[in-house]
């Protein structure tokens, strides 16, 4: 029997969505979700589960959708993943759960991400209260530092287990990359706000605007709290370091996205934070951050080109985002590397690039890009956005004596988040380097288990 085609989610038209910051994908309706759920073979040995970093019972939650038991489906999901509305939207499913679904052989894996999102959204629309079961109150204090997915999850887990939790965040809004990095059109902030409201219901004390390290010294943390979880992320942007990086018009993706997402600069002058509205924007990189920056620049009215030094197949961004970017009219210039920014009176006007070819695979297994001598050319650009990666956020680490770091400057921690200091646990990007939401979340949860063991 031929495998039925994947049911596509409802999406807004490219012409329409490219003009605003509203969500691009509208997801499944109930009927579409049921149709898609019915495609699942309910495998005895479900390979999909092995592809999910938190091992969600995927056939289990999908089966309940096919029976229209959405609430039951939600409970199953929630028991594995505290942020299903987020993960359903942003997980790189094609290399995780969907990438190992048996139906891949026919090129038509189950849309696990869209189904997960559907159930989570359904629960939210139907005001399905998350069951708050705090078994017992324990008079022990936990400090969680950083409110990205790792910190949010750890704080929720510890609060549910009855601990007194203080969650520290240096920004004025909790959520980490979920609020300052990933744009509204991919992840509505209302979803993050709901998760934060849930933490408050659990009794977590959210302490905003506090740079831990300076306002609260690590020694104080060690004295005041019974255990500490560090989830400060890998938020410091790298630059290629080519000539002209100081020119006006050259941004890191983090700065550009923060101005737009967290500070709402797209509404300038209604919002006070400015961002340049450029004509010709070049985004450098091929990951999710690059796609988010490119699509945000497009929504500000720019003509956008993504420049990437390898070829399209090596691009690490989620497939869906690359497709969306193409549909919206973003151009891709692959096998190209900028070598110099060209300025006029301190402002960027163009970028000199060189063409690349692919050589032997490097340590990451991807074929290494090699410059083709003499192939230099110039692209006109009044804005360049570098999205070439990030490194450890040192705001806290620079003040934390005795905490061991690895050779890349990330915190040394085992699989359970244990660091070189007995009371101190860590997880998320600050341990692994820039990774994914689901891995950060999983790390927050694993560390909660280890912290509970440590405290008992």
């Amino acid at each position, binding site marked *: 029997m031929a495998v039925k085609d994947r049911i596509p989610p409802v999406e807004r038209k490219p012409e329409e969505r490219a003009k605003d910051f509203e969500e691009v994908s509208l997801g499944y309706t109930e009927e579409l979700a049921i149709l898609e759920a019915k495609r699942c073979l309910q495998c005895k040995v479900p390979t999909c589960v092995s592809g999910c970093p938190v091992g969600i019972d995927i056939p289990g939650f999908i089966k309940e959708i096919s029976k229209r038991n959405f609430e039951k489906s939600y409970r199953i999901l929630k028991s594995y993943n505290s942020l299903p509305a987020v993960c359903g939207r942003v997980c790189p499913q094609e290399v995780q759960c969907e990438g190992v679904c048996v139906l891949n052989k026919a090129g038509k894996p189950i849309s696990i991400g869209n189904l997960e999102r559907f159930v989570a959204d359904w629960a939210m629309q139907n005001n399905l209260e998350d069951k708050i079961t705090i078994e017992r109150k324990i008079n022990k204090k936990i400090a969680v530092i950083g409110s990205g997915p790792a910190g949010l999850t750890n704080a929720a887990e510890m609060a549910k287990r009855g601990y007194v939790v203080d969650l520290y965040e240096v920004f004025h809004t909790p959520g980490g990359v979920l609020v300052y990095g990933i744009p509204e059109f991919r992840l509505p902030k209302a979803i993050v706000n709901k998760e934060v409201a849930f933490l408050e219901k659990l009794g977590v004390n959210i302490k*905003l605007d506090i*740079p831990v390290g300076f*306002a609260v010294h690590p020694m104080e943390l060690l004295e005041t709290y019974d255990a500490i979880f560090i989830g400060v992320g890998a938020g*410091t942007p790298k630059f290629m370091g080519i000539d002209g990086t*100081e020119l006006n018009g050259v941004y890191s993706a*983090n700065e550009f996205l923060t*101005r737009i997402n967290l*500070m709402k600069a797209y509404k300038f002058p209604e919002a006070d934070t400015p961002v340049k509205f450029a004509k010709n924007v070049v985004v450098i990189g091929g990951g999710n951050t690059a796609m988010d920056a490119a699509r945000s620049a497009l929504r500000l009215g720019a003509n956008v080109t993504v420049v990437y030094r390898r070829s399209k197949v090596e691009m690490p961004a989620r497939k869906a985002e690359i497709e969306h970017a193409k549909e919206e009219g973003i151009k891709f210039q692959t096998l190209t590397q900028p070598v110099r920014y060209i300025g006029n009176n*301190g402002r960027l006007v163009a970028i000199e690039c060189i063409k690349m070819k692919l050589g032997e695979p490097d340590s990451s297994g991807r074929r290494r890009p090699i410059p083709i001598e003499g192939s230099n050319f110039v692209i006109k650009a009044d804005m360049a956005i570098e999205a070439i990666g990030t490194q450890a956020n040192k705001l806290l680490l620079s003040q934390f004596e005795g905490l061991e770091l690895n050779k890349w400057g990330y915190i040394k921690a085992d699989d359970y988040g244990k660091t070189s200091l007995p009371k101190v646990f860590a997880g998320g990007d600050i341990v692994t380097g820039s990774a994914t939401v689901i891995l950060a979340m999983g790390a927050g949860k694993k560390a909660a288990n280890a912290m509970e063991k440590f405290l008992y």
Partner: protein
Amino acid sequence: MNEILEKKKLAYGVHLFWIKNELIAKKAKPGQFVIFRTHDSGERIPITIAGVNNNKFRVIVKAVGKSTYELCKLQPGDKIADISGPLGMPSEIKFYGKVLVVGGGVGIATIIPIVQALISSGNDVDVILASRSREFFFLTDEFENAKNVYYVTDDGSFGDKGFAHEKMDKLLKEKQYDIAWAIGPALMMKACSEVAKKNNLKIWVSLNAIMVDGTGMCGGCRVLINNEMKYTCVDGPEFDGRLVNWDSFMIRLSQYREEEKLALERYLEKVGEPTWL
């Protein structure tokens, strides 16, 4: 928290605030700053901590654009929506011997904690205070325990007529210093750094780069120090002035000139004459 307890006009467009915030008051070290967000749609603006007392800290704000005009309009009892801090690396305070500290404009206020800490560490501190004209000096009584205080004004209405770096040059011909600080407008810091360089004197300057987060997360505050990229908010804000690439620093300060002009015009259309300045 974050309530304005006291406000005082020091000169036209220059206002002093005491703000309630126990954590910042307790933890602030000389040279550090905070980030303000005046209200929910406000931008994040960095302001130096210019003194602490029990559960409150002091800032001196110069109105230069929309956000600072708005801030200066607030009154005792009003609250600042968000204040994050203290941020930045503190000044390197220790015993050096003889120290020269130059403060210009609002810098007159921001050097106070540094001067006081240097004196407490046993240093002999000479101070140059520079401003446009006589009415732009303030808080000068807080320099009483300095060895010498020299005044310079652009128009000669008080102290020597001229610029801070000219006074500095003169002093360096007569006296020996072990280290210097200069905090004020970029042009002043640049000129003082050139004088220091000529005299082989180490000089700290505090860079007022355009910031967003103040936590090392955006790279917008990047500056070139000895040709190396540094982030002002986490590696600074103080750097050796002799190593700063001043040209690129000043160009970056003008990044949003058109937007800033528009924002202020719109704001003034809404509120009318800024009589409160």
